[in-house]
C-alpha cells in the first residue's frame, strides 16, 4: 500500500481533519482566553452574580467563553470528519446542521453576554442609587437587570429562529410606556433644566444680586440646573428655573 492510496482513504482524511480541528480548537480557546484577559474582561465582570456562580463551579466567565469557542470548533471538526468518512450520508441533515450550529453558538454567546451586562448594570445602578436612602428604590436596579436580560433573550431566540413577534411587541409597549411616563413625569424638570442651562451660561443674575421673580423678592443665594434659591430676611424661596423664564426676572438696584 503506497502513500497515495492511504491519503485517499476517507477514514484517514477524517482522522486528519479531526486532529486538525482539535488542535485549532484548543489554540483558538487559549487565544480567546488570552485576548479576553488582556482586554480587561475579568475586572469588568468582577462581582457580577454570573461570575460568582462560575467561580463557585471552579471556573470563570473568561474560561466559559473561551471553552465555548473551542467546543464550537471541535463540533465543526467532528461533523466534518463524519461527513468525510460518510458515516451519515444525508445532505439535508448536513445542511440543517451547518446552518444551525453557528446560530446556537451566537445565541449562547448572546445569553452569556446578556447575563453579564444585566448583572453589571444592576450593580452600577444600585451603586449609583446607594446614597438614596429609600427602601423602595431597590426595585430600580432589578428592573434594569431584567430589561437587559429580556432584550438578550429576544436576540438569542431570534438567532435560533423562534418566532419572537409577540415578545417584540411586548418590548415595544414597555419601552413606549417608559418613554411616555418618563417625559410626562419629568417635563417640568426638562423645561427647568433647559432654562437652567441658559441661566448658568449667561448669568443674567448671579449670587448676591437682589431680584424679584413673580411675587418673591430677595437675594439670590444659589443658582443650579433646576432651581434658583432666593432669600429674604426670614424666608428662602426655591423657585424652579421654569418659573424664572415664565415670569421674567427683575433685578433690583438701590
Amino acid at each position: 500500500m503506497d502513500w497515495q492510496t492511504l491519503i485517499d482513504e476517507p477514514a484517514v482524511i477524517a482522522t486528519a481533519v479531526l486532529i486538525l480541528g482539535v488542535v485549532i480548537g484548543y489554540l483558538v480557546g487559549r487565544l480567546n482566553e488570552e485576548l479576553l484577559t488582556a482586554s480587561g474582561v475579568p475586572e469588568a465582570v468582577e462581582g457580577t452574580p454570573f461570575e460568582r456562580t462560575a467561580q463557585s463551579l471552579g471556573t470563570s466567565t473568561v474560561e466559559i467563553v473561551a471553552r465555548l469557542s473551542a467546543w464550537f470548533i471541535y463540533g465543526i471538526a467532528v461533523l466534518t470528519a463524519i461527513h468525510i468518512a460518510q458515516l451519515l450520508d444525508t445532505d439535508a441533515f448536513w445542511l440543517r446542521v451547518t446552518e444551525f450550529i453557528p446560530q446556537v453558538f451566537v445565541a449562547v454567546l448572546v445569553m452569556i453576554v446578556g447575563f453579564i451586562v444585566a448583572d453589571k448594570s444592576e450593580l452600577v445602578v444600585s451603586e449609583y442609587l446607594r446614597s438614596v436612602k429609600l427602601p423602595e428604590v431597590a426595585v430600580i436596579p432589578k428592573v434594569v437587570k431584567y430589561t437587559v436580560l429580556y432584550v438578550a433573550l429576544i436576540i438569542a431566540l431570534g438567532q435560533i429562529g423562534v418566532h419572537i413577534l409577540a415578545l417584540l411587541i411586548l418590548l415595544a409597549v414597555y419601552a413606549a410606556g417608559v418613554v411616555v411616563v418618563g417625559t410626562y413625569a419629568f417635563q417640568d424638570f426638562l423645561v427647568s433644566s433647559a432654562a437652567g442651562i441658559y441661566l448658568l451660561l449667561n448669568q443674567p443674575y448671579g449670587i448676591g444680586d437682589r431680584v424679584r421673580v413673580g411675587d418673591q423678592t430677595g437675594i439670590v443665594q444659589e443658582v443650579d440646573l433646576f432651581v434658583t434659591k432666593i432669600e429674604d430676611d426670614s424666608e428662602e424661596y426655591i423657585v424652579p428655573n421654569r418659573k424664572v423664564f415664565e415670569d421674567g426676572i427683575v433685578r433690583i438696584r438701590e
Partner: protein
Amino acid sequence: MAGLDDVFGDLFSGVDAVALFSPSGSYYERFTDLEDEDDDFELLVVGTENDVGADTFVELPLEFDNISDRIRFGLEGALDQDIIDDGDTLACATSVFSDDIDTVSRVRADADSRTGIYDLFARSRADPEVVKSVLELAIELGQKGQKGKPVGALFVVGDAGKVMNKSRPLSYNPFEKSHVHVGDPIVDVMLKEFSRLDGAFVISDAGKIVSAYRYLEPSAEGVDIPKGLGARHMAGGAITRDTNAIAIVLSESDGLVRAFKAGEIILEVDPEAY
C-alpha cells in the same frame, strides 16, 4: 495584677455610655456581645466612616489629631443626636500612639460647655461636605504653602448672597461665569494658585466658588478674637457675626487653620500635625 484592675477600673465603672473611636471590626463585636449580656450602657461608634456598621454612629468630618478635639466632637455629636443626655458619664476609647485603640478616657457630657465644633459641620448653612472640603483644602495649603512659601487664605463658606452684599470686589473676579465647586481635584490647584491674591474667597452653600478677590466689609463690633491675630482673622470673624456664613482662615504668620462661626473661634488646627 488584680490591684491594677481595681485602680484603673474606676475609669470605666458606672459609665452610662461607651464611645469607641474608629474601632476595628472584631473590637466592636466584643463590645456588642457585652452589650447584649447586660444593657447598662449605651454603645456608640465615632469615626470618619462607619466601617463596622454600627447602629449608633457619629461621623467625624476629619481625623482630628488632637484627642480633646476628637472626643469633644464625638460628645457634642452624641448629645445633638440624643444618644446621650446631659450629665452622662462616658468612657471614650480611642487611639493615640498606634492605629488600634490604646487609650480610655472618662468624660462627663456637659451641654453647657459645648464649643460648637459639631455645629460647625452639622448645623452650618453650607453642606457638611463643603465645609469638610474647604477645611481640608486650607490644611493642605497650610502644609505645602505656595511654592514653598507660607501663604494666608480666607474662605467664607455659606450664605453667599449676604456675604456678597457685605463685601466689594478688589479686582476682576477670576471665577466670574465659571461653575467650579470645591472638592473637584482641579479646583484645589486653582485655589492654590489664586491664594496669592489678596482678599477672601466666597463659597456658596452648595460649594460653588462664587468669587475671589473680595474685600469684606462687615461691622467688626463685638467680635471677640484673641489679640495678636491680624486683619484677615478679624475680617473672617466679623463676617460670620453679620451673616450665617462660617469662615475658615489660614494664618500666614503662624500657619494655623482656624474656623469661625457667629464671630467666635470654634476650631484651631495645626496643618503640620496632619
